[in-house]
């Protein structure tokens, strides 16, 4: 998306950062209420239909879950989990997708300039034109989201329907969601909605209910209501996600240090030359008699 219509807040592998700040736009967010999700998978296919992603081939292996993980051609997956707790049965369902982190690990890890961008409204997107398919973002992402597409050789994931939201429409999955467990709006509104629902759940006996908006990645533009927030892993969510330490160290310390080291090696060589000059062979090389005594 050009800067004219949707400013870019961050851009991967950008030397000087990206121009933004002229406009003030609200951060948008998607709200997922796992306590009212029925796992109907409308979001899964609404996503595929909008993004023209052809169906994948799957097999029944004893679960309602369509496939084990997200796929480059399947950006939105309901994870199912049957769980017995204190004699009560729960059938948990959660929409798994890109979380659109405020501090995106994928963007941090991405080496291709402008391949992963964060728009001013918070959407994190893979720009297919610039993506080189290196897969570093897979390592950078604490949620195991970006996937490599074999046909394009590029990474793919949920775009939060940036083509829809940039013209003022909600994402396709949110629009489709029959029970309204998905919502779309400003981050502020979605957090408020989440708090409201969490209060309801707490009153209804789910004392550990909370809104999952992990601060380890600066918060996310996908906020999730969990009735059992003390066990995010039941929903397939990491307890305390953050941009992997390795990736941070690599990008923020190792890379500049390395650059300096290489430059240092070069400077040192030049300095050495100025200081000591060449170690010249003395006299004529032709004459054995003139060989220097060592």
């Amino acid at each position, binding site marked *: 998306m050009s800067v004219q219509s949707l400013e870019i807040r961050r851009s991967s592998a950008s030397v000087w950062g990206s121009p933004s700040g002229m406009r003030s736009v609200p951060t948008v967010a998607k709200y997922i209420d796992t306590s*009212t999700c029925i796992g109907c*998978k409308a979001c899964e296919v609404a996503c595929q239909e909008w993004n023209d992603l052809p169906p994948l081939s799957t097999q029944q292996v004893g679960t309602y879950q369509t496939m084990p993980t997200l796929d480059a051609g399947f950006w939105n997956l309901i994870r199912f989990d049957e769980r017995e707790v204190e004699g009560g049965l729960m059938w948990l369902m959660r929409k798994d997708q890109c979380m659109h982190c405020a501090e995106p690990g994928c963007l941090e890890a991405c080496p291709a300039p402008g391949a992963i961008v964060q728009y001013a409204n918070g959407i994190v997107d893979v720009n297919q034109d610039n993506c080189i398919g290196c897969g570093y973002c897979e390592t950078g992402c604490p949620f195991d989201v970006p996937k490599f597409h074999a046909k394009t050789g590029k990474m793919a994931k949920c775009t939060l329907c940036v083509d829809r939201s940039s013209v003022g429409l909600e994402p396709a999955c949110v629009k489709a969601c029959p029970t309204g467990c998905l919502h779309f709006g400003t981050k502020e509104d979605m957090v408020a909605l989440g708090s409201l629902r969490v209060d309801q759940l707490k009153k209804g006996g789910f004392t550990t209910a909370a809104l999952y908006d992990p601060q380890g990645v600066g918060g996310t533009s996908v906020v999730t209501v969990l009735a059992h927030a003390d066990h995010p892993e039941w929903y397939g969510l990491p307890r305390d996600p953050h941009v992997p330490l390795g990736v941070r160290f690599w990008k923020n310390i190792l890379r500049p240090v390395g650059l300096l080291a290489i430059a240092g090696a070069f400077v040192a060589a030049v300095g050495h030359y100025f200081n000591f000059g060449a170690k010249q062979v003395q006299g004529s090389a032709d004459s054995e008699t003139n060989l220097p005594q060592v």
Partner: protein
Amino acid sequence: MASLAATFGRGAMTNGWVDIKNADVILAMGGNPAENHPCGFKWFIEAKKTRGAKLVAVDPRFTRTAAVADLYAPVRAGSDIAFLLGVIRYAIETKRFHEDYVKLYTNASYLIGEKYGFDDGLFSGFDAGKGEYDKANWGYEADAKSKAYGVDPTLENPRCVFQLLKKHVDRYTPETVEKICGTPKETFLKVCEVVTSTGNAQRVGTITYALGWTQHSVGVQIIRCAAMLQLLLGNVGRPGGGVNALRGHSNIQGATDLAGTFEILPGYLKTPAGPQQTLKDYLESATPTTLNKQAWASMNYWQNYSKFMISLLKAVYGKNATKENDFGYAWLPKVDGNYSWMYIYDDMYRGSSMRVGGKEAVPEGFITFGMNPVGIGPNSSKIINALSKLKWMVVVENYEIETATFWKAPKEYGGPDSSKIPTEVFQLPASGFAEKDGTFTNSARWMQWKWKAIDPPGNSKTDQEILARIFLAVRDLYKKEGGPGADSVLNVTWNYTNPAAPDLGEVLKEINGKAITDIPDPKDKTKMIRTAGQQLENFGQLQDDGSTLCGNWLHLGVYTEAGNNAQRRSTADPTGLGMYHNWGFSWPANRRIMYNRASADAEGKAWDPTRPGIVWNGEKWVGDVPDIKPDSKPGEFGAFIMNAEGVARLFAATLNDGPFPEHYESVEAPVENLLHPKVTSSPVTKKFSSDKDVYGKKEDFPVVCTTYRLTEHYHYWTKHTNILNQLQPGFFVEIPVALAEQKGIANGSKVKVSSARGSIEGVAMVTKRLFPLKINGKEFWQIGFPLHWGYAAGDTGHTGPLANFLTPSAMDPNTWTPEFKTFLVKLEKA
């Protein structure tokens, strides 16, 4: 819907989808709305979120609905009556019912004649020879003086309906319910408490159900329980209340309204039978006599029957229908006996049919528009073999279906070799929904026009064109050659602008009806309420002298002089209750909540002023379109205008299996009936006797099995659609963890499920969502599988076994709906 009609007067979803948001309690039982009606289910969630409503799910399986419910109670498949009568008992015992409502709007106070009785599983009047009841035994006690029916407003007379009901349900204690249904007592009592919390003026609850109730040999009586419970709780007619039948096909309601089934004509008029030789005979037997309670009169709306019928005859036969020829009544086919679903294939298969003592032909030709009996079943093998005896068959479809290719069905289904099948099969490609306009009527009775988006693909044609072209070709043959009953063929009107492909707008106009001649105002004969040719606007304009024509009186108002009201798309909802009166058209009379007179008390004030249905403003009823004469004062008429009594029936003498529901086991029952072992299954249920109709014993087939749909698929169509195959790629059998362990079945491995009819194989889905239930102290297993597969899946490769290969030919004695939901199987590793 027979039970709702028997109780309330009309057999359809009482309220609407959006209205569910107004409920305080939602009991989802006999259906899995989250799975099967996700977009309607949003209003369940809305009620939870905005009103703090409690959603109670009662189901043999822990379903998608249960996953988001506030309370889940397991129940053994086929034991719902015991459960619900237990709830009714609890309501009466604990006085958690809406007494004012019950006295005002139900027949609780009506006295029942001495001939009624119930003993050891049988109601009075049972004829063991015929396997039928004589319903005359169940009549009201007539009051000789007033010629009205005897009532006891105190509800204390032991012969009044209320006392009889109390006595009848007294056996269904929580302990008995636990023994029969396997529902733990504490859970059951919690359900009772939540559900009966609406038994007052302040709170409202709704009950939603679907085929999980309908498809039982006692299906009608299960639904009766729900209807009775809602009457006791005072929830019928009120926003947020009602008994909401969630229907499964886009226009199943419309198809029924327009006489899809043999026993009715459009608008639920009765199909004439042999004995009714003249229109007069017919009208006399079909028009109910008004029964007046002392307090108020019944509108008995069906007393207008002759207007509906004669206007229909004028629509069918046009100018050929005259007063002199009984409006062509004689040309109508008359029935003798039962011609419903399972009889079609039974007669076809056996090759013989006896009608009033005489042998008659059985179908040798068969036409199906968008239906797939081989998949639908039950007992698919019998249906395949029945179709194999046909001379010809026409299948009009979007996809190649199992029925069209029954002659190449896999051998395991037991059909003959294709070389031995004489049937000439025509497969005609039809248009899909997007390729034609016209109206669908949804579950909530909303008629909505849809517009055509594109042309049908390739050489396919719209269904109306295919039907019309066949009709015109047949009519031409009769014109040329004549033949028996040629008059019936030739006198039917087909005067559409383009007879070979009728414009659906024109057809809808005919359904709505118009004045043939000027219709004078009865109050002032110099004025006309309609002039010749004008579209009719309401039921009141219908005449029985041949001056109006109307294809379906129930749809009157859908296409008036104002235009096609099914095309209205106003999102205005001034009540805020989700009625949307200017969106489409809702029969009857654009009424959004039926029986809404009962939403107000005796004086016409809303039971709950925050959720008024209609209220009396001193001059007329305002709010929803009133389900009562708009200017009739409170107290003038009873609230249930379609019932001759003017009230709803807790006691309904019209059903074939008893005026009260009683727990009977399914035809293939895993246990004896705990209450009356001598009468385990319904004494009046119908079984068949051909060599294909075999029934399993509990000793050989110990596991209870049920079938269902998945949200990812639609019936037998969508296995042709790969994007949905991706979501649910194939057939599976859901098996409780402990049963799988016992049998050494691993998740994802192959299993074989057998019933007395045959066996199928599929992938095991070992799940915690099914579990053993303790029935009378003994553990029983339930398994289940979805029904979406078959052998015709185009080039997708997503074929699978026919679920209905296993289901039995057993059915409800009122609706003749097959018992798909409970049958016996055995489970093995494959």
